[in-house]
């Protein structure tokens, strides 16, 4: 259990401090600041022990969130809680920044009051929380009868994430498959590690209490169906199915059904939420291949050539491509030639940044640079950081495809066909590095 929660800015000033249990004294706030935020050296561990109190911290932009406890708690849970806390705050006021925290500190105190009681996590679903939180200055002082009954039904009813009596004129559904593809490649082009972590984010504007069913090309399901339908069918669909390593669902998904039949059925919350989160490591489509060539010409010159190859259907367009080629610290000047896009040497970041707005699939582009170095006495060898890359592609690198999303609402008279559905795939780069 958590004894206290503190939020600091980058200077170590306390923005929020909430103590839940008596064993955390007031000096705990300062102890963390002095020992961790103001410490000279780098952070040595996300868990710090100061005077028999353990501090767990996470950092979001330049804000520190710290949870203090005296007990021997379950570390994974405290971290998970801090992440959840961040999620909730982001859902309420967007990015966690000093400005936002200061402007919303009353809201944060309210949240802290609801989420934790006596140091035990209570209610952490953004949707359900919204009824309890009186958003500053917006809500009127009296809760109407209707709202009161909502609270009661919320807390007693089985469905904590959706209130009753939601009505829309147009029933709409937006489904985003957002993936981030991570890669670590050796200079020889060997994949050292690659994985995709993806999220299915849904925005639903549906009336009543609809029952939804979501289907994707999950290998296990397809194989199962294949067995039933015949071998030919299995062979056809087998190619396009993907193996999901692990996945997590929003609490609304009936896990028992997923375990038994691997079907994803749920009553969705209203508005935007994350339906599932998954990870795959097999058969990943790597959208780009980076081929580096670094040659040291004497002590004061370096020749770098980087070729990027796009490896997807030529009808698709990748966007916001950025290649970052690190340069040594003693670089004095850089001459750049690139076939496409714009390249610039940024001395402050010690890197050549090469930006391409758009690039179609199955294309190739290259940049060559001559880097002049200042002769130094420093014998330190240049560590050659990896070349990193950013991009956005309009498909899912894991190969995930949404097969269907069916909506059933037996009580109201709209059917699956009346719902307007939008599906979008976005593949972004996570840590996409190639060593050189």
């Amino acid at each position: 259990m958590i004894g206290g929660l503190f939020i600091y800015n980058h200077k170590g000033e306390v923005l929020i401090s909430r103590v839940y249990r008596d064993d955390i004294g007031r000096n705990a706030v300062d102890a963390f600041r002095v020992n961790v935020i103001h410490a000279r050296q780098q952070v040595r561990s996300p868990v710090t022990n100061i005077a028999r109190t353990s501090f767990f911290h996470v950092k979001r932009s330049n804000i520190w969130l710290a949870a203090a406890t005296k007990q021997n708690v379950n570390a994974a849970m405290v971290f998970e809680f801090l992440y959840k806390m961040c999620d909730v705050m982001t859902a309420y006021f967007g990015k966690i920044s000093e400005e936002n925290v200061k402007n919303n500190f009353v809201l944060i105190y309210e949240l802290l009051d609801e989420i934790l009681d006596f140091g035990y996590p209570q209610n952490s679903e953004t949707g359900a929380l919204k009824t309890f939180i009186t958003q500053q200055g917006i809500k009127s002082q009296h809760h109407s009868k209707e709202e009161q009954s909502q609270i009661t039904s919320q807390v007693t009813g089985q469905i904590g994430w959706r209130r009753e009596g939601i009505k829309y004129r147009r029933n709409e559904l937006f489904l985003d498959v957002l993936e981030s593809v991570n890669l670590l490649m050796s200079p020889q082009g060997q994949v050292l590690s690659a994985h995709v972590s993806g999220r299915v984010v849904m925005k639903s504007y549906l009336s009543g209490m609809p029952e939804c069913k979501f289907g994707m090309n999950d290998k296990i399901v397809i194989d199962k169906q294949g067995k039933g339908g015949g071998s030919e069918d299995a062979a056809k669909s087998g190619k396009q199915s993907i193996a999901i390593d692990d996945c997590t669902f929003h609490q609304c998904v009936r896990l028992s059904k997923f375990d038994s039949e691997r079907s994803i059925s749920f009553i969705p919350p209203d508005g935007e939420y994350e339906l599932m989160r998954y990870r795959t490591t097999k058969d990943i489509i790597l959208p780009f291949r980076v081929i580096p060539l670094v040659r040291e010409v004497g002590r004061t010159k370096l020749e770098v050539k980087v070729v990027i190859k796009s490896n997807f259907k030529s009808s698709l367009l990748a966007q916001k491509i950025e290649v970052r080629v690190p340069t040594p610290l003693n670089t004095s000047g850089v001459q750049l030639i690139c076939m496409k896009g714009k390249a610039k040497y940024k001395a402050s970041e010690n890197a050549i940044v090469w930006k391409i707005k758009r690039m179609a699939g199955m294309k190739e582009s290259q940049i060559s640079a001559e880097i002049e170095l200042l002769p130094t006495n420093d014998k330190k060898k240049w560590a050659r950081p990896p070349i990193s890359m950013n991009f956005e592609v309009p498909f899912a690198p894991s190969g995930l495809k949404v097969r269907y999303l069916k909506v059933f609402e037996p009580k109201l008279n709209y059917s699956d066909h009346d719902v307007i559905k939008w599906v979008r795939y976005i593949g972004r780069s996570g840590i996409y590095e190639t060593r050189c």
Partner: protein
Amino acid sequence: MPYLGGEETVRELRRALSNPNVQSDQLRYRNTILKVIRAMSQGVDMSGLFSEMVKACATVDVVQKKLVYVFLCSYAALNPELSLLVINTLRKDCQDPNPMVRSLALRNMTNLRLPSLVEYVEQPLAAGLRDRAACVRRVAVLGWAKLHNLQASSEIDAAVVNELYSLLRDPDPVVMVNCLRALEEILKDEGGVAINKPITHHLLNRLKECDIWGQCQVLRVLQRYRPQSEDELFDILSLLDASLVSPHPPIMAATLSLFLSLCSGQPAVSLAALERVRGPLLAACGSGSREMRFTALCHIQLLLRSIPGLMGAHYKRFFCGYAEPAYIKQRKMQVLVELVNDENVAMLLDELKGYCTDVNAETAQAAITAIGRIGRSYSDRCLEILTGLLGLKQDHITSAVVQTMRDLVWVCPQCSDTVCFALEGCEETLQDSQGRQALLWLLGVYGERVSSAPYTLEVFIDGVRSEASLGVKMELLTATMRLFLCRPAETQDMLGRLLHYCIEEETDMCVRDQALLYYRLLHCGIEETRKVLQGRRSDPSLGVLIGRPAEPVSQWARSFNTLEPLRQGSIETESVSRGSPEHTMFDPKPNADLSNTLDCSRIEKVHSECVRCPTIPRCSPQSLQAAMQLVNIQTLAFTPPQTLPWRVYLYTHTCLDDAPHSTLILGELLYTGEEPQKAEVHKGSADGGVGAEGIEDDM
């Protein structure tokens, strides 16, 4: 934080709060209160406004109420009398038709933390337990825990405890979990909430309804349950199987922890469970958030203590990303060292070599140390890399390499030739005292094989006046003495100068005493000196101790999924900086979990008894050691095989589940070589509170 102008602010706010115009205007009133809270959270002492704030509490505006409660709860302890006034408003709110207001009032009533208010709080709390809104019951249940915390001495009414037990069957899962939490705290002295068969089955059935936090709590409480039959055990295990592979790391860890405690009698089942969590654990290692990655890595280290081969095939998952924080990189390297085998050694070393030039000096040093560890089994490859690193001529790398080589040579004397060859010339790059100490030690021990040793030492001796580090001076004395023993002609003159300086001019007593000791030793003759200084040579048989035996799961099962695994590593990394190998090298790791609880003052009794054993048929030390490990007796150290008398130091410790302290027994096995064989066991038993037991060893 000192806040200038604090008093001025307080005065201004007081004026505003008591202004009737402000009070009548809802919005202005609220904004003024907002200012008070803001100042409070910035650290200004606002306790002076307590009475004004108490007045502001009587309002219908929920927002304002919440704000005032935040204030009141922070300052109530300073104003117990005035707080009495708030109680009335709070009690009235407990009757409000709106469940939100009721729960708010109840929560803040208990958050005031004033023992004097307990009598007023009990009645609404009892009513709250029977409230029809679940959110009120949630608060009321925890309220009792807070009350108990406030006055731990007084007993909570047995009727309340019974009611809490019955609320375990509440339809709301959060109420149920809160009941568990409250009972755990209230009944702490009795060992927490009673976990019997019906309760266990009830909790297990409702596990799925709870959120992550609830599940963790339930799983943790259930650890105390002991199934009555094997069938029941397996029913529970198969029920929990889904959560064992849960994608939420906290649930997965809590379930595994429960598995281990349930199956403590069945090692095969626990091993199967460990195999099963491999996937989720690896996934947690690759999770997006670094803190979770770190936690997972720490727990993997724990698992590897029992099943070294668990992650063997997945070693690539532990390769470091460039931008990862140093603490993750260092943990990953510690894991990588454990995973090395014949197939992946080349790849692994290649990878580690890449980390040696990391920007972060600590990471670079950790990588070099890791290579050194691998060097104990693959010395040629590793030495090649280490020698190559010396060519970079960077001071922190060279220092780490020399230290690593020193440690390596102690364990694998066969590498000494390569090391001696590599040492030439690296004294120029060495800057820090640790590295120079290591170099001096190597020069002292292998001086006869490093041709330039006397010249290097001479440079050190010439600069001894400006030497700041105590350790370097001490090491220099010893090294020069050792070198003198093997190359007297070249060294005699400089040894004289060094001893003269240390005895006559040195101000530090340690150095001076050491020098005097050597000086007097030399008076006793060269043979005597040789005996003292070259007595301790590294011993190839120490290699036996390197391969750590797989520990039984029960060794660490209790610390799984707590803070301990996260702490342990940090202690380990600190102890990495070290002196000469003969002093620090071989603390066998299994000891680590005991060392922090052991305390000399607690050694209650030392048995010194002599047990003679009957003749044992001839057997090799290795097989003897293996046999002893089977019965959980570990070897601490032993003398080389051919020496007489031959001694082994052994230890064993209890790892009972419920004992608050464990007992450590140290023993010495002595073989004098006469016929019949004799073995003597001295036992020192250290424990806390339990009382020393003279456990008879049947050796």
